[in-house]
């Protein structure tokens, strides 16, 4: 939008231009600041430091939605806390390294580890033989699997009693596979299988039980102890199946015998000197923390105070600014790319370039935006190691993915707009001696702009909402912020409502802008032109 109005600037068509670009630059700054992981100064390295500590920095990937292991407590979404975070902090200290934390979706953790985006993954992840085929694991915390249902549900004696019932688990965890194994034995016994629903975050898993959509969820005991407070006794543990292979949380690293040995040694040291014991106390992980989950009557209703404090919180404001910034900037770039592309595609000559452009448009319109984001973030570093370096932030990756994706759509809009301009216009401008550039700038673009603007603003509004996909590559935009906050408080309705207010406010603002800008094109409508002149 800003790009197209640039061409019309000489003709005084679009005034919102100046402050829009100022806003844009401001937002870009915020976005970069928000998405850059904290970097400390490297200290002296020694030979007892594992190789995944690079340049004096231990980089760790985590999905901060699993309290008390790793979660966001305050309003700063880039600062996860919890047992896991304290453990890696202690490790970094032992190794005289500074700590850099990268937060992302759970499903992104292992791909990021493989892509060398981080040296360690710690995120309340169970130590599993399956995972150890591809990665090394070192345990640091005991745990047990639990099956949790609503508070008034009677306890059950075995997993078999869940036959025919639906349970919720977090996507990317190993619980689903474990239940598949239960289902094999259930099938052998001629019973109905346990049905599984998978959700991207732990809080959504819990929410399914709270709203009664599923019978129970599967989680770890430590997590539940912590969540007691939040859940106000709304749930209880109905079963603790004793699975041999579900007893430890582990930190994961890329396969490397020496690194693995160094890590276990350091963790053993932390265990011996009481560091880990202290941390367990701090995060209520010790066994005496287990209490009966008392059955309270849940207090329903909308908590207006939470809603307003979320609405005016710095975290939401930052998230919204980042959403808006990413959307504006990537659309701006998309428009810049797409204008020459549209001009080339509209030319009468049949060139090889045209085929390349057509392929570009087809590919990037054809592939799901989510896939493109994941590809750029997780697959690209495997081909080009340069993309796993610190400068390639989630913000930048989102910008690249969305700009390319959006340009493929914008090309079609521009192309339609350009070909809607009567051919006689170019002819007349040529006959008046204007140069090619002048013909486009003063005659064709201003007319194409009028045709392109309404669909462009529609595209932008849709893009504004598409940015929410970038939470999968750990961009802390509005929806990601909302989810982290929900994980902390379980106040779904209030936080979703606050996010909705932000999205609607932004969308309505741009719809309003669209109306205002359209009024400037009165030359295309006889009645309006006359009314304006009067």
């Amino acid at each position: 939008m800003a790009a197209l109005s640039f061409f019309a600037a000489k003709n005084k068509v679009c005034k919102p231009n100046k402050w829009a670009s100022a806003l844009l630059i401001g937002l870009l700054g915020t976005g970069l600041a928000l998405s850059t992981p904290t970097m400390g100064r490297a200290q002296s390295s020694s030979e007892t430091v594992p190789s995944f500590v690079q340049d004096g920095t231990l980089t760790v990937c985590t999905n901060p939605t699993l309290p008390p292991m790793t979660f966001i407590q305050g309003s700063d979404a880039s600062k996860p806390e919890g047992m896991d975070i304290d453990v890696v902090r202690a490790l970094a200290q032992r190794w005289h390294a500074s700590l850099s934390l990268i937060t992302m979706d759970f499903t992104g953790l292992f791909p990021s580890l493989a892509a060398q985006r981080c040296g360690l993954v710690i995120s309340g992840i169970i130590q599993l033989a399956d995972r150890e085929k591809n990665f090394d694991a070192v345990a640091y915390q005991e745990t047990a699997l639990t099956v949790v249902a609503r508070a008034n549900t009677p306890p059950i004696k075995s997993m078999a009693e869940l036959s025919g019932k639906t349970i919720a688990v977090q996507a990317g965890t190993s619980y689903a596979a474990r239940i598949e194994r239960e289902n094999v034995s259930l099938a052998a016994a001629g019973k109905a299988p346990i049905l599984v629903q998978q959700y991207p975050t732990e809080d959504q898993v819990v929410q399914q039980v709270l709203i009664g959509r599923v019978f129970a969820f599967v989680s770890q005991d430590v997590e539940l102890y912590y969540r007691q407070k939040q859940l106000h006794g709304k749930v209880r543990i109905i079963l603790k199946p004793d699975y041999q292979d579900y007893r430890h949380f582990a930190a994961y690293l890329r396969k490397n015998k020496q690194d693995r040995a160094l890590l276990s040694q350091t963790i053993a040291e932390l265990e011996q000197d009481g560091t880990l014991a202290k941390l367990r106390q701090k995060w209520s992980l010790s066994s005496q923390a287990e209490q009966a989950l008392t059955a309270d009557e849940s207090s329903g209703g909308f908590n207006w105070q939470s809603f307003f404090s979320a609405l005016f919180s710095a975290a939401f404001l930052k998230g919204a600014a980042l959403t808006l910034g990413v959307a504006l900037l990537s659309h701006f770039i998309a428009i810049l790319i797409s204008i020459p592309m549209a001009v080339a595609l509209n030319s009468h000559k049949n060139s090889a370039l045209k085929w390349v452009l057509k392929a570009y448009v087809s590919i990037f319109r054809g592939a799901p935006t989510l896939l493109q984001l994941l590809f750029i973030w997780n697959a690209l570093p495997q081909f080009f190691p340069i993309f796993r370096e610190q400068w390639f932030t989630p913000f930048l990756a989102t910008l690249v993915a969305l700009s390319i994706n959006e340009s493929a759509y914008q090309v079609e809009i521009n192309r339609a707009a350009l070909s809607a301009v009567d051919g006689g216009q170019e002819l007349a401008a040529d006959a008046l001696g204007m140069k090619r550039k002048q013909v486009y700038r003063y005659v064709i673009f201003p007319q194409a702009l009028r045709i392109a603007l309404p669909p462009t603003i529609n595209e932008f509004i849709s893009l504004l909402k598409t940015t929410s996909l970038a939470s999968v590559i750990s961009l802390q935009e509005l929806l990601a912020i909302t989810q982290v906050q929900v994980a902390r408080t379980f106040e779904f309705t209030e936080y979703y409502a606050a996010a909705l207010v932000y999205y609607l406010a932004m969308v309505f603002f741009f719809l309003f802008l669209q109306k205002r800008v359209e009024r400037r094109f009165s030359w295309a409508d006889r009645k309006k032109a006359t009314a304006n002149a009067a």
Partner: protein
Amino acid sequence: MQPNPLPHGSPQPAQHPPMIAVHNMSKLYGEFVALDRLNFDVQRGEKIVVLGPSGSGKSTLIRTFNRIEPHDSGSIIIDGKIINEKTSLTELRCMVGMVFQNYNLFPHLSVLDNCTLAPQLVRNVARKDAQEMAHNFLKQVGIPEQAHKYPIQLSGGQQQRVAIARALCMQPEVMLFDEPTAALDPEAITGVVSIMDTLAEQGITTLCVTHEMAFSRRIADKIVFMDQGRILEITPPEQFFTAPQTERAQNFLNQMIRY
């Protein structure tokens, strides 16, 4: 511009060199011969009306003069300058103005801006001077009061007057008209034709494709009659309308009279 050697086989130089000299000029669209080895001169200040059936190449011919359609062989010399791929298009188009059947005004610009855009961009005329000149020409074409309207607010006849004023603002030495009245109703035609009469009296070299017989008779110094990409006759209008030399022209005139 390079010095201009006279093409071989051209008639001996006259005292006043012609404004436009066309020699063996051809134009192809792929295999199709749109203009076939044309030869004729237009003297300074002369008024030429080009006639011919539809598809005979009239538009193509006049478009070769401002190189909107480049010719493929032979030569065109305008005001002593050879027109080819080395010609500065800016210079050429400052010298040769054009008016289209469909006006082709810029709808997003006011009448005044339509007239001042190209002089400012191409001739580097200062904005104020361009506006003053535009007002003069708008007065001359009889619509000084419409300067601040948008094209869409004008009638067809008024739009064509603006188009003429816009072309004149470039101060051309040659004016090309391609059926300027074909899209107008009879009353508007009268207005536009009277403007063209005035222009003709001012002595600007004019090539005009038109079906306005009365105008051609009154104004034209010569009629160029074309068919299938060839010039069949170049004659004064009196002779052309009363006693055409070719049968093809006779048939054409008969049809013109019938419809």
